[in-house]
């Protein structure tokens, strides 16, 4: 048996695994690849090299006790209706990616909790990976001892390193090819299934050879068994019960078991087959363990390593081919465990530790999905490398075979600490985050203190003194006899204390703490998972689904766009039609396209409604509600804006009407003003011509003509003054000087000086005459004069009267001018304060229609206003101004 041949066969076998994994990835969703048999076989990652080689060693040392490692899981699977059914349903419903994810998700998506579980899983699994590396290395060594020529495997470390690197390569290649939302790896699962068959057949072949080839049949084996040294051992009931419990716990809590059982599960119904088929597999795996152990003990030389009987028995009998087969079986056991465990651990490490850190450091926007996806894959790869690196490191550190032999059970006890939080979480709605944290940390600490740290041997991590007398000589804190309870098997001792303290803390902290709403929702979702979900069948893509998806997509992103997306995907899948297979990748892409239109959560909910792969979770609903709220908010804003626009449009319409009106007024004014200017000009010209050309005009006539010319010039000047005045006021070039005066004084002065004409009578109401105001008296007088003049000119009552009322309104001083004329028609009130506005040209002579415009300008300059007061019987104007004039602006 050449060692070179062994290496060549190993490589060929690995190449075969590659081919199988690759083909399975390519085949995608074909029916038989997702059969319950494949599922059952993938569960066999439970049987590691520790099982393949170690079970025989275990049996040779401790007799039938090795059975507990298989009876425990058998009991769990026989009772699948209780726990596994629920776990698998929850896993599918919540799209759980790992056991840490499940725990975190149950307790309100707490990442801290996920980190704790991940750390525990890494600590618990690393020694186990080291164990696999060791077993493969030892099996190489066993061959090299009997082989002639070729390589020598003196350097165990080197061999282990190469194996670790190779496994990391394979795992990265098939474990992180794509980022499946459901974390499923068809290729890896197929390879694992193949390895499951190889290891079972290998062990059966060795067993059959041993029983009927070396020994003389079953009777002979039974006789040898009863005669062997094992038969004289006492049966340890405590360990029997403890180990059965431990193994039952491990099948639920081991990260790799959770990975294949829950995460990789593609159809819930597969569990119904696995419920009996997996125990049957375990049964077959352990059937020949005892015979091989007994025959190894009785035929091989004293001191042979019982852990390698599976290899050394055929080798000693000269059966090179069979030994090679056995080697492949052991190799399969080790590699499948390492691959699945590192995928499971890397998922946890990258999802719960590295990604949060990455996102926190890069502060990148999570919606840049392309970048984040690449980053996730990268962290997965790094994590796989790190996990295997840790395993190798542990292998180098612990070195000796004796320390590793017990590691399997220590690992089990470590991951078992997750059990209370897990089972409590899915059966008890009252379980809370604080309970889970307390239980996990408490249980894990006790485990580390009583089992893990002492496992490095006396004088390892704990000194001999420490182990014998406890820390600082405190007797009841001895790691192997906590609270003074002595004489127990260390494993059972650690198991009892860690599990009971764990459960106690979990219960008490759950009872006293109060869960947040998310926790309570998730708790209700998981505990009552069967009431909230319809039984999802297998996620098997069908044409109907693709068509439904297309119909839906068309509705959202439009027909042509949807068709394009579908056609591109179909082409990438190598199909000629327009409908691609609804593979996870395609659905992923579609979801992303849709989420561009309707938001991620809605897109997910819509797609899963059609694919039915997962029911809508509370989280989804909450996200949908959020989005809906946002949309509602947005539409409210739009509504408000459109109302605003309506108002503005109305205002604009009004302004336009006013402008049109003004423009008409202006045109009218232009003809008016030219007329106004022309009239005095004409008389000036004609009278000056008369004065120039006519001789012999009497003295009296000269005086008369001259005064006409003078009057007309004055009129022209007044018009021009008004024009100038408004222009100055409008440009803000006017300077106002404030002086203190009472209202009454201003009015008195004005009414004394103004030309009231023959008829107009003024009556005063002097309520506010005493108010002292600080204002530009000249300008204010100008306004008042203007108003009085207007009344004189336009009030057409027979006995025109003007009532002037003074008063105060809040901070403002008010003067009302009310005449007894016919007032101003409502339609004209808007424009009387505009320039050049004149309501009619009757008796309008001498005015340019600028008076009220000038008044308004002045009042505004003073910080007040002028307004028309309707409903006073005649034309009424109100001046409003502050008691103290606003500072003049330039």
């Amino acid at each position, binding site marked *: 048996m050449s060692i070179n041949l062994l290496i060549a066969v190993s490589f060929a076998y690995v190449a075969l695994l590659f081919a199988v994994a690759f083909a399975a990835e390519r085949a995608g969703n074909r029916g038989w690849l997702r059969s319950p048999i494949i599922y059952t076989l993938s569960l066999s990652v439970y049987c590691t090299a520790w099982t393949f080689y170690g079970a025989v060693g275990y049996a040779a040392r401790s007799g*039938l006790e090795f059975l507990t490692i298989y009876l425990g899981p058998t009991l769990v699977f026989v009772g699948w209706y209780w726990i596994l059914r629920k776990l698998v349903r929850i896993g599918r419903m919540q799209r759980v990616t790992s056991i840490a994810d499940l725990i975190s998700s149950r307790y309100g998506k707490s990442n801290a909790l996920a980190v704790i579980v991940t750390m525990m899983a890494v600590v618990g699994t690393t020694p186990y990976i080291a164990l696999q590396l060791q077993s493969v290395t030892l099996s190489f060594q066993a061959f090299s001892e009997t082989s002639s020529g070729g390589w020598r495997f003196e350097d165990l470390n080197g061999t282990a390193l190469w194996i670790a690197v190779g496994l990391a390569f394979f795992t990265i290649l098939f474990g992180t090819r794509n980022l499946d939302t459901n974390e499923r790896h068809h290729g890896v699962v197929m390879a694992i299934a193949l390895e499951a068959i190889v290891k079972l057949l290998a062990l059966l072949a060795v067993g059959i050879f041993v029983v009927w080839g070396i020994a003389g049949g079953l009777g002979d084996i039974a006789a040898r*068994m009863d005669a062997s040294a094992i038969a004289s051992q006492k049966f340890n009931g405590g360990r029997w019960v403890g180990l059965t419990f431990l193994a039952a716990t491990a099948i639920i809590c081991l990260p790799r078991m959770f990975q294949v059982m829950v995460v990789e599960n593609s159809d819930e119904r597969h569990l119904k087959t696995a419920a009996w088929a997996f125990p049957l597999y375990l049964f077959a795996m352990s059937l020949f363990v005892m015979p091989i152990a007994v025959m190894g003990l009785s035929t091989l030389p004293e001191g042979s390593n019982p852990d390698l009987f599976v290899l050394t028995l055929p080798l000693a009998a000269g059966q090179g081919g069979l030994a090679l087969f056995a080697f492949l079986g052991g190799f399969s056991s080790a590699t499948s465990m390492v691959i699945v465990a590192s995928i499971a651990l890397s998922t946890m490490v990258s999802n719960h530790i590295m990604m949060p850190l990455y996102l926190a450091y890069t502060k990148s926007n999570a919606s840049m999905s392309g970048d984040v996806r690449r980053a996730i894959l990268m962290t997965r790869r790094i994590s796989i490398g790190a996990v295997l690196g840790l395993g190798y490191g542990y292998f180098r550190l612990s070195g000796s075979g004796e320390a590793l032999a017990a590691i399997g059970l220590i690992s089990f006890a470590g991951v078992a600490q997750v059990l209370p939080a897990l089972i409590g979480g899915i059966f008890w709605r009252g379980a809370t985050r604080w309970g889970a944290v307390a239980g996990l940390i408490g249980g894990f600490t006790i485990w580390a203190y009583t089992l893990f740290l002492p496992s490095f041997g006396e004088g390892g991590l704990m000194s001999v003194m420490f182990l014998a007398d406890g820390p600082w000589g405190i007797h009841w804190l001895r790691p192997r006899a906590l609270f003074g309870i002595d004489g127990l098997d260390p494993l059972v001792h650690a198991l009892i204390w860690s599990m009971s303290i764990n459960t106690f803390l979990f219960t008490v902290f759950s009872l006293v703490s109060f869960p947040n709403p998310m926790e309570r929702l998730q708790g209700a979702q998981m505990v009552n998972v069967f009431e909230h979900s319809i039984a999802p069948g297998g996620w098997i893509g069908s044409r109907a689904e693709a068509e439904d998806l297309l119909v839906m997509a068309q509705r959202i992103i439009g027909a042509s766009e949807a068709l394009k997306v579908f056609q591109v995907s179909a082409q990438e899948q190598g199909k000629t039609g327009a409908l691609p297979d609804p593979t996870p990748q395609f659905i992923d892409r579609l979801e992303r396209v849709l989420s561009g239109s309707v938001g991620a959560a809605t897109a997910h909910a819509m797609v899963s409604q059609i694919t039915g792969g997962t029911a809508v979770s509370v989280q989804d609903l909450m996200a949908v509600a959020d989005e809906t709220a946002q949309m509602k908010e947005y539409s409210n804003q739009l509504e408000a804006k459109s109302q605003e626009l309506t108002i503005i449009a109305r205002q604009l319409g009004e302004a336009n009407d006013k402008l049109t009106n003004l423009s008409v007024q202006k045109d009218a004014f232009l003809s008016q003003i030219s007329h106004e200017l022309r009239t005095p000009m004409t008389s000036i010209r004609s009278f000056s011509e008369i004065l120039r050309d006519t001789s012999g005009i009497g003295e009296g006539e000269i005086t008369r003509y001259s005064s006409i010319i003078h009057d007309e010039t004055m009129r022209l000047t007044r018009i021009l003054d008004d024009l100038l005045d408004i222009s100055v006021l409008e440009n803000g070039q006017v300077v106002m000087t404030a002086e203190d005066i009472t209202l009454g004084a201003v009015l008195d002065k004005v009414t004394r000086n103004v030309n009231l004409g023959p008829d107009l009578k003024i009556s005063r109401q002097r309520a506010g005459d005493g108010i002292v105001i600080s204002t530009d008296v000249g300008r204010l007088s100008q306004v008042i004069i203007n108003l009085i003049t207007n009344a004189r000119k336009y009030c057409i009552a027979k006995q025109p009267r003007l009532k002037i009322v003074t008063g105060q309104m809040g901070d403002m001083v008010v003067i009302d001018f009310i005449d007894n004329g016919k007032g101003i028609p409502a339609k004209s009130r808007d424009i009387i304060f505009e320039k050049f506005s004149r309501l009619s040209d009757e008796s309008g002579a001498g005015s340019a229609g600028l008076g009220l415009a000038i008044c308004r300008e002045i009042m505004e300059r003073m910080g007040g206003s002028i307004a028309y007061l309707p409903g006073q019987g005649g034309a009424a104007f109100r001046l409003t101004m502050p008691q103290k004039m606003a500072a003049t602006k330039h």
Partner: protein
Amino acid sequence: MNKEDRPVFLESDGYRLRRIVDALRFLPFLGIFFVVVPGIMLSGAVPRSLSGVGIYFFAIWIVLILLTAILTRVFAKRGKETEEQ
């Protein structure tokens, strides 16, 4: 099949299905009893015949597997029929 033609035994079908579920639930306790109790009884003693004890456990094991297989299959079949109706 209209309402009148439905078998009177429809009720009993549902009843039977529930009892099968009960049996499925009971199974692990049966297993625990037959695996754990002998373990405790044997505790501290040297078994008279190691091969005999071994054969006992393997026998219990295969019986458990068979019972699970039968009950699960019946459950799956009946469950499907009930759903279809």
